[in-house]
């Protein structure tokens, strides 16, 4: 068998391991799926009245849920990333990882298995968020092609963030450390166009919001789902996702290989 097929086979094996772990840790997995829905409900029914009116969204004839649903989808990706970082960090402290390192397997498969598992978990979580948002009055105007494009950009973004989460899980020596590093995801979500229009933010934050990676992803998603103008956001989003994936993968691999014979 070729190197590539070994890599795929070992990654698939590690993915099965990760899925089994998720099923064994069912309460943790379920709470991971529920938290984004709670946030969605919270933002629409608790903050929605004030924030929607304040941003003039209702006056423009749009519902706040239409504005915020794509933002919550991105928030979901971020919180999935935090879970990944913690899980990975805990897994790395297990003796079985040392065993994997002494076996003739595709080395990065330990990481790719977890990344693929996280991707699946996050996509399920996003499916739930979209479902609940639709029940709450989210009315996307997208046609099937736009939906496929939207799901693709979500998957691309999740993949990128998950690799960065793996880095956080490896850099943070303890689950608590990994978790605090993942706060970066929350910070980027809140300072993006996810919940509030950047043009309503002040000075430096506004500038940061316009240039940070999450904003073009959300704007692209909004454009695809609701028909708002996309402009160059799509290109920026794909570029950011590709860049973060590449950096995350190479960095994570280097961290995993450190202190050991290659």
């Amino acid at each position: 068998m070729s190197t590539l097929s070994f890599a795929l086979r070992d990654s698939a094996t590690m993915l099965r391991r990760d899925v089994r772990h998720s099923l064994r840790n069912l309460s943790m997995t379920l709470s991971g799926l529920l938290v984004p829905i709670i946030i969605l409900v919270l933002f629409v029914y608790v903050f929605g009245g004030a924030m929607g009116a304040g941003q003039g969204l209702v006056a423009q004839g749009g519902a706040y849920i239409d504005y915020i649903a794509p933002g919550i989808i991105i928030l979901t990706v971020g919180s999935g990333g935090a879970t990944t970082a913690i899980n990975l960090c805990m897994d790395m402290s297990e003796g079985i990882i040392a065993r994997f390192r002494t076996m003739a397997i595709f080395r990065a498969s330990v990481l790719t298995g977890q990344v693929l598992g996280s991707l699946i978990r996050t996509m399920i979580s996003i499916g739930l968020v979209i479902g609940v948002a639709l029940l709450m009055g989210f009315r996307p105007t997208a046609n099937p092609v736009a939906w496929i494009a939207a799901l693709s950009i979500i998957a691309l973004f999740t993949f990128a963030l998950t690799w960065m989460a793996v880095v956080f899980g490896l850099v943070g020596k303890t689950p608590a450390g990994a978790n605090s590093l993942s706060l970066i995801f929350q910070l980027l979500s809140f300072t993006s166009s996810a919940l509030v229009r950047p043009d309503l933010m002040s000075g430096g934050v506004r500038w940061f919001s316009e240039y940070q990676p999450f904003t073009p992803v959300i704007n692209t998603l909004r454009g695809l789902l609701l028909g708002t103008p996309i402009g160059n956001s799509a290109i920026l989003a794909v570029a950011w996702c590709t860049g973060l994936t590449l950096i995350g993968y190479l960095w994570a691999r280097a961290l995993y290989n450190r202190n050991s014979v290659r």
Partner: protein
Amino acid sequence: MMMIETRGLCKSFGNHVVLDGIDLDVAEGTIFALLGPNGAGKTTTVQILSTLIGADGGEVRVAGHDLVREPDAVRAAIGVTGQFSAVDNLLTGEENLLLMADLHHLGRREGQRRAAALLERFDLVDAARKLPATYSGGMRRRLDLAMTLVGNPRVIFLDEPTTGLDPRSRHTMWQIIRDLVASGVTILLTTQYLEEADQLADRIAVLDQGKLVAQGTPDELKRRIPGGHIRLQFADASGLASATRTLGEVARDDNELTLQVPTDGSVRSLRAVLDRLDHEALAVNGVSVHTPDLDDVFFALTGHPDTQKGNVR
């Protein structure tokens, strides 16, 4: 053929020299024991030989492959059961074995066949569908070793395979190790117990503070260390004096009223001593048998007692 060869193996962590020029030769189909106290460098040696960490200097060949140039060829030939359990705690015993089978690309049917055979062989059939959290220490260790064997390794590293096990589990593990070597694999094990090395190993190397202080067969090593002795306690000085006359060349302690009679540790020699005392109708207050332990080995070979015992590296 030598399955493990090291020349001038060195490793330091910061300023602390852990291995200082280790030369080992382990022949195919034999058990080689690395004997030493905590902190001697045993685990570090296993970690280097099993490709977990890199050496700072020296040459290593395992199963005919250079460790640095062909790590994957080495990995394909070895199996490791460490001091710390290397099982997946969220998978059942059977799932752990099937995971190993998948990573060795065995195919579903062959994987299941081998997992079932190993569960049977290591007496884990009843526990196969339970999580390792419910296992006893001995069962965990057996599952750990079973996982190592899924890939049919030619060289097996066992890092303190019986540390923390009760005597019964220890003897089970010893039998498993003997059976393994009978099937032709080569085993390098580390241990703190002289008895374990003596029971299992064809050759023993004694490691002390990163250096090999002795190497040889168990018999060769035992000839270099003081034998055991029988310690006899007497009620008074006259009893001690008569016993000294009866037994001849023995170490005598007038303050403690004791005699130390050299022995090979066998029941026969103990009985011979007691018979002679009995024959002279000499009363003995107490008898204890002292067999040589790691402390004696270290004292004999290094001139200093095993000072690092109890220190965890």
